[in-house]
């Protein structure tokens, strides 16, 4: 049973002041060139259904509380992935204006996918790493 589902991931995305570039590339994962369903990955509508949370952006003031609330609704074990340079804390908006220093650090990301924005392939590699981490955690 575990073997059968070892690569299945339910992914929920949180937009935290990102410029929409990371979101475009995440949406590309539903297209035929990157089709993540072939890997057993799935984007889900509710944080309650998720075991991986992707976060993008430096963290905006207004998203801080909603993003935390959504993350708190995600069951354990889970893996948070920082998508893009802003979430990784090194992006163009980190510390600029009222933006935070990276949604990844604020929300406890353990996998980081760099890029401005990262390509769909790079995001996919990050998702595979998250799947492996979840597997180890379930051993």
């Amino acid at each position: 049973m575990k073997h059968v589902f070892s690569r299945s991931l339910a992914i929920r995305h949180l937009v935290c002041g990102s410029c929409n570039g990371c979101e475009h590339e995440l949406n590309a994962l539903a297209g035929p060139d990157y089709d993540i369903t072939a890997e057993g990955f799935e984007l889900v509508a509710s944080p309650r259904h998720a075991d991986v949370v992707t976060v993008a952006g430096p963290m905006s003031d207004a998203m801080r509380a909603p993003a935390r609330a959504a993350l708190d609704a995600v069951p354990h074990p889970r893996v948070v992935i920082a998508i893009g340079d802003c979430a990784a804390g090194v992006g163009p908006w980190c510390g600029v204006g009222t933006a935070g220093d990276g949604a990844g650090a604020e929300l406890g990301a353990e996998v980081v996918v760099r890029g401005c924005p990262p390509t769909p392939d790079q995001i996919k590699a990050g998702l595979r790493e998250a799947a492996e981490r979840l597997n180890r955690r379930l051993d």
Partner: protein
Amino acid sequence: MTYIERDVSLAALRAEVRDARARAVPLGAYASENVVHYLFLTRDGILVLRAPVRDGEMVASCTPEMPLYDWDEREMRDERGIRFSDHPDDRPLAIEHGRIPEARTAGGRGVTLVVVGPVHAGIIEPGRFTLSTTGESVQHLDAQLSYSRRGVERALEGRHVVDAAALVARICAACTVSRATAYARCVEALAEYTCDERADLARLVLAELERIYNHLFDLASASAGAGYGRAQVEGLRLKERVMRVCADHARHRFMLDAIQPGGVRADVVGDPPSLRAALREMREEIARYESMLFDTRSLVSRFTGAGIVPRESARALGGVGPAARASGESADVRVDAPYGAYAHLAPSLSLEARGDVLARCRVKVREIGASLELADRALAELGTTRQAAPVELSIRGGRWSAATEGPRGAETISLATDARGTITRMHAISASYRNWPLVARAMRNDIVPDFPLVNKSFNLCYACADR
């Protein structure tokens, strides 16, 4: 494109705005310290009505008779402390200290609220939408954004105009070329520099590529909203193909930083013939995609009559771009006040009358064809010419505004600097900011389950509306 400022008294402002609005396309309004600016697009270029506001003075709001200024004036109040005497909405526009203003709702018996957001079910930027419904029927939609607000404009003040270009390009990835071009045109005007012809041609090609991939994404998203997976997947495939062309010919999938003050990056559009060939290959596929969409009766049926924006509403709310054109309003900056290479390469305009999801999708499909055609002509003119590095500009300082036609309509930048080129004010009015009120209008009398479809038929950005 020229730039004309006219100083008017505060007492005469509303009448002047009304008068200008009757003759020109309103782009919006903003405030710098103690001065309000109302921007218009005339055949010659930008007209700005400027009115000084002395301490304690109230400004007569234009919103009661011209509702398109609703957000602009509330933003002036929030951000720059301008006080309006009779603005119909006293709520802040933006969320402050984590507190979102109470949503506006329809009154009456049996009205029930459906609230979604800020976290949405799909991979969508954050916003809160409050639908006042009587059963399935929507009476009113209040769209409250600003969750992606980074305080961009204040943060740019004090930076050098040329150094700030990279941040302006990253306000929003999906319209970076259009916004960066408007910004570059402002910076170039403040340096009294006119962009060279081949860079203007390259800018046109990149802007049309941006329009093509965005429109394809909109069509894929609208198809998803209608539950037609085949057209969603095909739209995503075609979008990916265009983004790979962008990566090959503009060094980045979104073409970030391709546009620079003083020209374009030297290594973009370096091989016009091969780019031309790549785009020519797409023509037939776009035609096939058009058939897939509009020869599918059930999809056309689902698109028809959903999310109607009547022409008078599009005009009253200040709609721009394909959303306005789908309602019969012919606004297009490339045609209304041609800039750069558009001065001699004009796009063929697509207009529809009904203002529903079908009309917006039809306009976008036809515009993809027109963009391919326009890019082809520009590339033919470039021949085998390579681009030069952007010219180093010496900024003289002053004020300037410029508008370009992005995928969603007019992208307007206003810029003021001191004599050293340090930014004292930068304001961006995005096409998405202008068009959000149209989304709300489109949901009136529609049903709740249509919201994803109607919303995706506009596919507006939040990041450049919020800034």
